[in-house]
């Protein structure tokens, strides 16, 4: 994305999110997002396979607490 694309993206996505930005703020936000875009580009070059899942935080239940009783389904 070039600067013009980023500014257009900021204005469109802010509107979709219900964020009201005047022109000056939209410009400042776009420059911050441009910095993030540059960093995201660094990750685009990193090889990831379809099996590389996100780092985990969510656990449905601690594993040791799952009851396994004989005869139970």
């Amino acid at each position, binding site marked *: 994305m070039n600067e013009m694309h980023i500014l257009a993206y900021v204005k469109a996505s802010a509107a979709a999110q219900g*964020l009201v930005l005047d022109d000056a703020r939209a410009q400042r936000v776009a420059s911050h997002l441009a910095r*993030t875009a540059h960093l995201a580009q660094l990750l685009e070059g990193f090889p990831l396979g379809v099996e590389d899942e*996100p*780092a985990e935080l969510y656990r449905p239940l*601690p594993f040791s607490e799952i009851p396994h009783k004989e005869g139970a389904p």
Partner: protein
Amino acid sequence: MKNTALEIEGLDSFALARAIRAGDCSACEVLEASMARIERTDGAVNAFTGKSYPRARQEAAAVDALCARGEALPPLAGVPYAVKNLFDIAGEVTLAGSKINRSHAPAAQDAFLVGRMQAAGAVLLGALNMDEYAYGFTTENTHYGATHNPHDLTRVAGGSSGGSGAAVAAGQVGITLGSDTNGSIRVPASLCGVWGLKPTFGRLSRRGSYPFVHSIDHLGPLADSVDSLALVYDALQSPDPLDPGCHASSVQPVGDLSRGLAGLRIGVLGGYFHEHASAPARDALMIAAKALGATDVVTWPDAVQGRAAAFIISAAEGGSLHLDDLRIRADDFEPLSVDRFIAGALTPAHWYLRAQRFRRVYRDKVNALFQHWDVLLAPATPVAAPEIGAEWIDINGTRHPSRPSMGLLTQPVSFAGCPVVAAPLWPAGSAGLPIGVQVIAAPWREDLALRAAFALQSAGVAHLKPVEL
């Protein structure tokens, strides 16, 4: 023999705990000395945003009552401390550095770690300044004023736990609690010349603290010596099944810090960490490496991408967390960070998810590194404390934006979740200002980082320096 107020001010927290236990001074005497120091110095430093003196008097009196009855004292009995104002304190509003949170109800109970400190007998003096919602590295807070570096009042204290670093450096309290997502304990420890510990991600409960980035937030202590740091860290440890991010299922005490370096494989991080360090920061690292006998240069895997991913996840989660307020009252946010919060809220999902997927691969590579090394060293900040209001810093002839760049050397390490002690070094060429060195160990091996830090302290190269205020 009783200690005078002057002698009490000269003791670190570890020694204070011992003096109170031995009956050399009372908890109330220690408290009075600490309150007097705060009143004398905080007009210049601006570390505190709230003081809890009535509670402190009650807690100190309870310790002295235990003493009078001849009962056993808990490990931090009578030791003064304060907390970054994102920790819940029962009956107080948790500001998290913001104006917006002033309208929130007071906390119904203490944060989990404040409860741990109380159980250990420590005495809470108040709440400390920070960057709004922890999104910053300088504690230039527009709502509550900048916190000033006690070693040079024209300079920043670092952030986002700037009040936590400055309060220890100013001798107001010897122990503080802070939070560290991308460097927010290690940066102020580095710039203020105090000890800091960012534990393993998931070691300490975060329950009752105001979050910034759920995926990366850590809590931990800052202190006036390694002995104090280890003492408070052990007191804070406790499994907490109610915090989904608290992964430690048992307490692992630090053990004997004075065991020395025998058997420890210690390396020095080069590459990215060398390129983003100024000459004084490199000098600080070399002083530490020499003291620990570390000569081998080690490459941290994918540090550039690690920092990039930490940056993206922080922006996206931070922006999302505050989206409701950004929609209706953006002008009440900190002017220095509101546009970054909005940009974060607009982060494309692909960038965020790719950063999270990268993190898993990254973690495995970093953990593999520790099959060959026990402790790794790197500077904590690229430069010493910049002046308040500085927009740019110079790193080896290249201009970088001052505020985000203070975390260049800390972000890749915390993103992996490794424990780090920030050790206060005093290099040449920094106009007498400190620069910290990160003492990094494998996840769950805080004990090794603290052992190496203790060796730095014993060698006399890492320590606090008194300030004139």
